[in-house]
Each structure stands twice: as structure tokens, then as C-alpha cells.
């Protein structure tokens, strides 16, 4: 055999077989951590199954002793939503990829749902879930979880669908050649292939979710005000009471929680998912996680994954479909059935339009719609100006950081952390400032919209700048390219594809944030800016459902139009011209 091992880098294998050695220190640490997490989960879950009246008996207090408990409840909500999103993703995206007809409806729906302002949903979902579980906390809890779910599920499902559609054709042929049953094919090919991007998307979605969990725990819909025990409610109360210390504590708690779940959950998962990356060469840089290394050194890893493995095994056991080898059957879709399907869709669309129109215009006039359109234009102006300003600031900084590997390595996680940090925690400070200096809310409230989302621009630009090939930079240096020419011909084209991704996310997030950022309060002081966000927020407060629906519809239209007319062409241009590959 003349073959040699091409890559000597990683020869560690991931054996699932239990080691037969004495328990070591790593075992102990990991065990304690797991016990702790389990205990916390039980403690937190106890609170969910109680009657709603309990919330009034035991209202949220600003006692620091309770803060860890509140933080725990918030985290559990987040993970419950993440679990729901995962299930939704696996079912719906698989369906969309497998069935052409289902795909025709699901895919565009996901695309649109990604752009719909989630905060606007709250009104409807809180009412609906409270109706489902009258008098129980569970209903409100579910509403909060659902709000977070809506911020995560769509883009996870969309990414999973795209992965399923881009499964390498040779691997697809292998599974077809060996006639793997659908279940086996899913477990052996589809799921592993899609895992890395699913994990990444879940992580990004989770970051986005913090913003909404804070907004959804303490919510007023018409006459109903509900405050669930959690950091969000704590914050709402602190704002109402003008308690600076409490706000500071909330910020601190948020920071610690985000750091912990990042280190204990997502880093390990990202490190684990690296093995599913579809590449034939061993990469030099693998994601690192101390927690993952710790768990891997213990016997606990198999135990930890036991439920997942068991589920997989169970599915395989149940999968009794016979293996068959033979001609692939590509059924020609029947024309009658096809027509029938199209007619069904058409009828559904018309019915939906009619219902929505009747609902909204039963109480509203066309002039309302025109007014809302005007407000949307104001908000759009804000988004555009803010994205432009944020780009002016963060692109140069991001490029500078990205070109210094040492700094990039350190600051990239910081930027991601900042993106996860719920910026609404900081809103009260803006109100104080505006009231104190008597500034115009129309201008000075605007920056709040981009406070939490600008980081997407930063960390994407950092990633882009560090991906500029060294030879290009050396060539530029050699020929003395510097100053504006360097920006124009080296840096900006290099980071542009990444910038577009970041700016697209930031702009979508800013539209969403406008609902909480355009109308902010501090104690009894209320500051409002003109815009679509304020319109939706006020309509929610008064429980004016038709106006909320109108506001959401208009905002969705703007976001979608913005994506189609601005970002997508830029993206296409970047792909065609500037992709370095």
C-alpha cells in the first residue's frame, strides 16, 4: 500500500464505549454540574403548574434574593422555546423538503414569517393561550414561550430546509443505491448533514430570543396585565419604580446567564457538531470548548446523549420497511391532482384575504391604512439612517479588528455576546436623558432601535475581514495600495458579502425593535416617537386588535419589500462578483 495518511492532525476517535478506569476529577466536576442543572430544572418547573391567582398572591418583588430564581425561570422559558423550535424544524422542514406540494406552501410561508414583527404577535397569542388554559399560569407561560418560539422557529426551519435541499448528490445516490428506508436516510444522511448549520442558527436565534423574553414576560393586553416571574418582569417593575439598583442587577444577571449558557450549552454543542461538517479535509481550526472537553473526558458523555441515542435506536427498531433494491420510481404527478391542489391553494388564499380584510376594515377606514403607511415610512427612514450610521461606525472598526487575528479572536465572541444581550434593558437610561435635556424623542429615541442589532454588522464584518486571503493583503501591501484606494479595492469588496448578511439581520431586527423602542417609559414618564412601532405598541396596550393586525401587516410588507428590493439584489451581486472562493 503506497497510501499515506494525508492528515496527521486529529486522530482522536469519539468512542462511545465506557472507559474501565477509576472516576477522575473531571467526572466529579461534570457530575456536580449536571446534578445542579437537574435540581434547578425541577425547582423552576414547579412554578409553572400553579394557578394564575398565585401570581397575584406572590407578585414579582425587587428582592435580590429572588433574582437568581427569576433568571432561572427566564432561562427555562428560553430552552422550552428552543426545544419546541427544534421539533417544529425537524417536522415541518422535513415535510417541506420531502413533499413538493407541502414545500410550495411551507417555504414561502417561512420566508415571510421570518420578516414578521414578533412583538406584534404577543397580543394575539397571550389572549389565545390564556383562553386555552383559563386561570392557570401555564397558559401565560405558554404564551411567553410561544413568543420566543416565533423568534426562533422560522429561520431554524428555513436553514434546515435549505440544508436538506443541498445534500450532496453522490451521498444521495449512495442512500438510494443501498435503498435506505426514509427513517434511516434521515438519521444517516439528512440530519447529520444539516446539524452544523442548524446548531449555528439555533445559537443565533437564541440570541435574538433574549430580546423577546424580556418583552414578553410582563405584558399588558387591554385590561389584562400579566407579570410572569422572570428577569423581564423584574425589569418592568424596576422601570415602573425607577429603581436604578434593580436595573443594574438585572443587567448583571442577564450578563451572567448569557455567559453561562454560552459556555455550558452552545460552545460544547458547536464543538460536538463540528464532526458533522461536510468537508473531506481535516480543518486546522476546530471550535474549542472547555466544557465539551471536560464532558468528553468523563463517562458522562454517553449518559448525556443517552436519550438522543435511545430515540435514534428506537426509530431504527420501529423502522421495519423492507430494504428493496430496484428501479427508482419517479411518479409523474397526476395533472388532475395537481390542478386540484392549485385550486385548493387559491381558494384558501382568497378566503384568507377576505377574512383579514373584513376583520381589519370592519372597524377601520381606508384613511387609517394610509396613515399607517405614512408612519411606516417614518420608521423606515429611521431604519435606513441608523443602518447607514452603524455601518459607518462599525465597518472600519470591524475591518481593523478582523485584520488583527489576535484581536479578532478575542472580540468576535464579545460582539456575539453583545448581540445576544437584550438591549431593552438599557432603554430607561435613554428616557432619563431625553427628559432631562428635553430632547426630541423623534430623533433621540431612534438609536435604541439599533442598540441591540448593530452588533450583527460588527461581528459579520470581523468575520469577513479575517477571511480576506493573506495573499491579497500582501499583494496590496507590496504595490503600496493604501488610504481610500485600499478601502475601495481591498477591504470593502472583501467584507461586502459578510456585511450584507449582517446588515440584513440588523435591519430586520431594527424593524422589530421599533415596537418597543419608539415608545419607552420610565416610572410615570412616557416618551414617544412618531412611527409604526408606537402605533403597534399603543394598539396593543389598548387591546385594539384590528389596529394591531393592520400595523403588523404593513410592517411585514415593508420588511419583505425591503428584503426583496434592497438586500437580495445586494446579496446576489456579492455572490456573483465578490465571493472569494
Amino acid at each position, binding site marked *: 500500500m503506497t*497510501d499515506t495518511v494525508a492528515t496527521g492532525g486529529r486522530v482522536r476517535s469519539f468512542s462511545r464505549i465506557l472507559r474501565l478506569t477509576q472516576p477522575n476529577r473531571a467526572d466529579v466536576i461534570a457530575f456536580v454540574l449536571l446534578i445542579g442543572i437537574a435540581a434547578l430544572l425541577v425547582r423552576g418547573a414547579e412554578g409553572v403548574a400553579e394557578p394564575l391567582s398565585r401570581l397575584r398572591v406572590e407578585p414579582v418583588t425587587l428582592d435580590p434574593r429572588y433574582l437568581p430564581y427569576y433568571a432561572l425561570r427566564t432561562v427555562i422559558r428560553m430552552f422550552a422555546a428552543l426545544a419546541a423550535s427544534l421539533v417544529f424544524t425537524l417536522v415541518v422542514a422535513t415535510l417541506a423538503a420531502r413533499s413538493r406540494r407541502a414545500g410550495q406552501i411551507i417555504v414561502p410561508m417561512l420566508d415571510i414569517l421570518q420578516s414578521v414583527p414578533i412583538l406584534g404577535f404577543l397580543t394575539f397569542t397571550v389572549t389565545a393561550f390564556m383562553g386555552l388554559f383559563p386561570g392557570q399560569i401555564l397558559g401565560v407561560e405558554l404564551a411567553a414561550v410561544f413568543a420566543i418560539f416565533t423568534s426562533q422557529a422560522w429561520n431554524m426551519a428555513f436553514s434546515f430546509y435549505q440544508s436538506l435541499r443541498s445534500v450532496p448528490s*453522490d451521498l444521495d445516490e449512495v442512500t438510494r*443505491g443501498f435503498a435506505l428506508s426514509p427513517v434511516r436516510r434521515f438519521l*444517516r444522511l439528512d440530519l*447529520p448533514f444539516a446539524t452544523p448549520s442548524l446548531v449555528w442558527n439555533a445559537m443565533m436565534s437564541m440570541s435574538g430570543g433574549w430580546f423577546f423574553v424580556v418583552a414578553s414576560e410582563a405584558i399588558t393586553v387591554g385590561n389584562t396585565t400579566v407579570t410572569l416571574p422572570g428577569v423581564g418582569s423584574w425589569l418592568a417593575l424596576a422601570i415602573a419604580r425607577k429603581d436604578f439598583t434593580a436595573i443594574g442587577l438585572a443587567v448583571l444577571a442577564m450578563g451572567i446567564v448569557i455567559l453561562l449558557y454560552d459556555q455550558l450549552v452552545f460552545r460544547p454543542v458547536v464543538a460536538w457538531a463540528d464532526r458533522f461538517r461536510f468537508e*473531506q479535509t481535516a480543518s486546522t481550526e476546530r471550535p474549542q470548548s472547555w466544557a465539551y472537553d471536560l464532558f468528553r473526558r468523563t463517562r458522562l458523555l454517553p449518559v448525556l446523549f443517552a436519550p438522543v441515542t435511545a430515540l435514534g435506536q428506537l426509530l431504527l427498531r420501529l423502522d421495519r420497511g423492507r430494504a428493496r*433494491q*430496484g428501479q427508482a420510481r419517479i411518479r409523474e404527478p397526476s395533472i388532475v391532482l395537481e390542478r386540484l391542489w392549485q385550486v385548493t391553494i387559491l381558494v384558501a388564499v382568497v378566503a384568507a384575504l377576505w377574512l383579514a380584510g373584513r376583520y381589519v376594515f370592519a372597524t377601520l377606514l381606508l384613511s387609517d391604512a394610509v396613515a399607517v403607511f405614512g408612519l411606516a415610512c417614518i420608521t423606515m427612514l429611521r431604519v435606513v439612517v441608523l443602518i447607514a450610521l452603524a455601518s459607518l461606525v462599525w465597518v472600519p472598526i470591524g475591518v481593523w479588528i478582523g485584520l488583527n487575528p489576535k484581536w479578532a479572536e478575542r472580540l468576535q465572541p464579545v460582539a456575539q455576546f453583545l448581540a445576544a444581550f437584550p438591549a431593552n434593558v438599557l432603554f430607561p437610561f435613554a428616557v432619563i436623558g431625553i427628559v432631562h435635556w428635553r430632547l426630541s424623542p423623534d430623533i433621540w429615541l431612534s438609536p435604541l432601535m439599533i442598540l441591540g442589532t448593530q452588533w450583527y454588522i460588527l461581528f459579520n464584518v470581523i468575520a469577513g475581514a479575517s477571511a480576506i486571503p493573506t495573499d491579497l493583503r500582501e499583494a496590496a501591501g507590496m504595490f503600496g495600495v493604501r488610504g481610500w484606494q485600499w478601502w475601495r479595492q481591498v477591504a470593502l469588496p472583501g467584507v461586502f458579502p459578510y456585511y450584507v448578511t449582517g446588515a440584513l439581520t440588523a435591519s430586520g431586527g431594527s424593524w422589530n425593535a421599533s415596537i418597543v423602542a419608539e415608545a419607552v417609559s420610565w416610572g410615570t414618564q412616557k416618551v414617544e416617537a412618531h412611527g409604526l412601532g408606537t402605533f403597534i405598541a399603543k394598539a396593543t396596550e389598548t387591546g385594539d386588535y384590528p389596529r394591531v393586525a393592520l400595523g403588523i401587516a404593513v410592517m411585514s410588507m415593508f420588511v419583505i419589500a425591503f428584503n426583496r428590493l434592497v438586500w437580495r439584489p445586494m446579496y446576489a451581486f456579492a455572490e456573483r462578483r465578490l465571493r472569494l472562493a
Partner: protein
Amino acid sequence: MATAFLRAPASRPLVQVEHVSHRYGRGDGGAPVLDDVSLTLHEDEVVGLLGRSGSGKSTLLRSIAGLIRPDEGRVHFADVSGGPAHTISMVFQTFALFPWLTVLQNVELGLEAQRVPADERRTRALAAIDLIGLDGFENAYPKELSGGMRQRVGLARAIVVNPSLLLMDEPFSALDVLTAETLRTDLLDLWAEGRMPIKSILIVTHNIEEAVLMCDRILVFSSNPGRVAAEIKVDLPQPRDRLDPAFRKLVDDIYAQMTARAPAEPVRDGLFPGTGIQMVLPRVSTNALAGLIEEVDASPFDGRAAMADLADQLQLEVDDLFPMAETLQLLRFAELQGADILLTPAARRYAQADVDARKALFAQALLAHVPLAQHIRRILDERSGHVAPARRFRDELEDHMSEDYADETLRTVTHWGRYAEVFAYDEDADRFSLDDAV
């Protein structure tokens, strides 16, 4: 059971391909890939499908594998009395290994699909890994292996399910020369010693020497659409020697076979499908053309070269060399005679000329012999602004050929036109012009 001697009298048919035709895409609009192909594979033989890209050999392979259902015709497997039905497995050019499964798990994949119990699965997989020379690497992941070892895994995975027919889709073309040679030899040894439970092997390749080295029978495919153009029996004893004169002669014969024009095709328009502006142009760079002219012009060829020698010298495979040679023929820079390529006086002048003179010669040839280039230039000349949208020509081409072919043809003519400075093309505006054309 079998030794090389026993394998020789191949008789019992294993697979029959009957009148298979296939088109790309749906309906009648797609470009034909396979046109009425019939062939029979017998037990105990290694058959090669030799042809260029676009000759539909991979499509035929996938039709036999059951991965594609051809539009017309059928693939029939000989009935087996009593025993298990025939199974087929396939070895891929790209190896097609699952990066998240270990070598062992990859090999077990097919057995798992057949619901083979875990113990038996392991035993059989380890035996196959052992047979193919991979023991010690059972727990490695594919990304830890070199290309040659990855293809060994692909081979082990294919034979572990005891297929009666092994299909190989350009199995060695992604490997370097040395590794490919070792793997070929190992495979032939296993085959000759009868240590694989395989009744027959079908290899798709565009490497003529590889086909002659391995196969008992070679089916030469013509392109666009794919047809069986010739069937060649290889009677040389195994192991075969590349330097054996009989071997060389066979290789030359096949080159001649592949350059020969089908009698029905018009002689003056080269070998590309279609005539006039409908001609599909292959993607060949002017640099490569210049290089080829210089190579043939210089010693030792001195204006005339055997294609086989040229392929050897330049380390080119049929897929690269043939389109280049045929483009030269289209431009009347060369003539293909049998297995030889012969430069015309124009080409010999080209070889000696400087950059500008070369461009002038090329422009002359382009406008004289490539109808599409003529067409574009004429339209540009006629228009007052001397600009024309590329869309116009693309539409025109798509009337006669598939979208992909139209795109490639237009790209090619753009490249040639730019080099010859016959016309210019602006990608942003997607239009042709005479702007910086001479």
C-alpha cells in the same frame, strides 16, 4: 471459484440494456443524452464504457444502478433461479463517503439497510475492510484518510453487500497517477484471484489506457447524443504491460476510433453537434489552443503527432485533449487523420508569429469558420451604436440547444472573440460591442 483462466469464456448474460434513450430535463425539450443504447453484460467480464463528457456514460451507469429511470427502453437483469436477487453496488468518482461515519460505519451502511444483524454486519464489514487493505483504519473518519484510502473505503462498502454487478463511475480519476495505478492493480488482483463475490464489473472512464489496462471489452461512446460507436474486445493477457507494442497499438486504434467522424456528419464542420450558429462550442481556452499548437509544431512532433503520444506528453486525458484538437480542426488549424493530429500551414505560421500576428490569424480563422462569431460580428457591424445585448444571442441559441449548452457556447465564443479582438463584451451590462475591438 474463478481464476483468470476460468473467467475467459464469458457467456451467461447478467444484464441486458435494451434500447435505452434518455433526455435531460422533462418532456421533449431536453437535450438527448442517450440515444437507443443496447448492450449486454456477461458474467465474468470487466467492461469499460469509454467516452467523453456528455456522452451519457454516467447516465447509462445510473440507469443500470436504478438511480435514474430512462425515458425509453429498459434494463433487464437475468433471472436467478432460487438464489437471492441480483444486487448492484456502485463506486463513485467523489468517493461519496459520509464524513460523520467511521470507516467501519461507512462500510456497514449497505448491510444496515438490508437489516443484516449487528454481529454479522460487523464480521462481514471487517472482512471487506481486511480484503481491501484497510485494517487498522476501522475507526478512522474519512477526513483523516488520503484520497486513495478513501476510495478503498468506497470499494469495501460496495463489495461488502455481495453485489453481482459492480459499477464504477470514473473511480480513479480523482486520484493522483501513482495512487490510481496502485488501486487499479490491487483491484485487478482481487478480481483475477476471484476473492470478490462479484460476477461482473462495469467501469466508466475517459482514460483510454485505463480502459485497455483493465477491461475485457470496451464500448466506445460517441457524444451528443450518447451512442455505442464501437465495441472493442481486449484479448491481451493479464497483467497487461503498457509498453507492450500490442497494448500501444490498441490504444492508438481507440484514439483513431474516437476521432473518426461518423459518416453521416458533415465533414467540414468539425465534430461538434449542430451546424451553423447552432453548433455547440466546447469550453476551450485560447491559451490551451496556443499551447497545443506550439507543442505539435515543435520537435519531436514537428507538425504531426499521434494523439496517444500527445496525451502522454501533456498529461492530458481524452476529455481535455479531444475538445482542443477538434477546436483546432474547426478553425482549420489542424486536421485529424486517424489517430494523428496534423497542423495546417496556418497553424505553423501561428506557432512562429508574435502576439499581434497570432491574434490576427486567430481572428481570421474565427470569422471564417465559426458561424456564431461571424453572426455576432455582423450584427454589431450593422447596428448604428455597434452594441447588442447578449440576451439576444442567448435566446437565439436556446432555440436550438439546452440552456446550459447555450450558456457555455456563448461563453466560449465570447472568450475567443475577446482574444481575437473581434468584439468586446461587458459583463455588467451583458452586451457585446465593438468598443475596444480593432
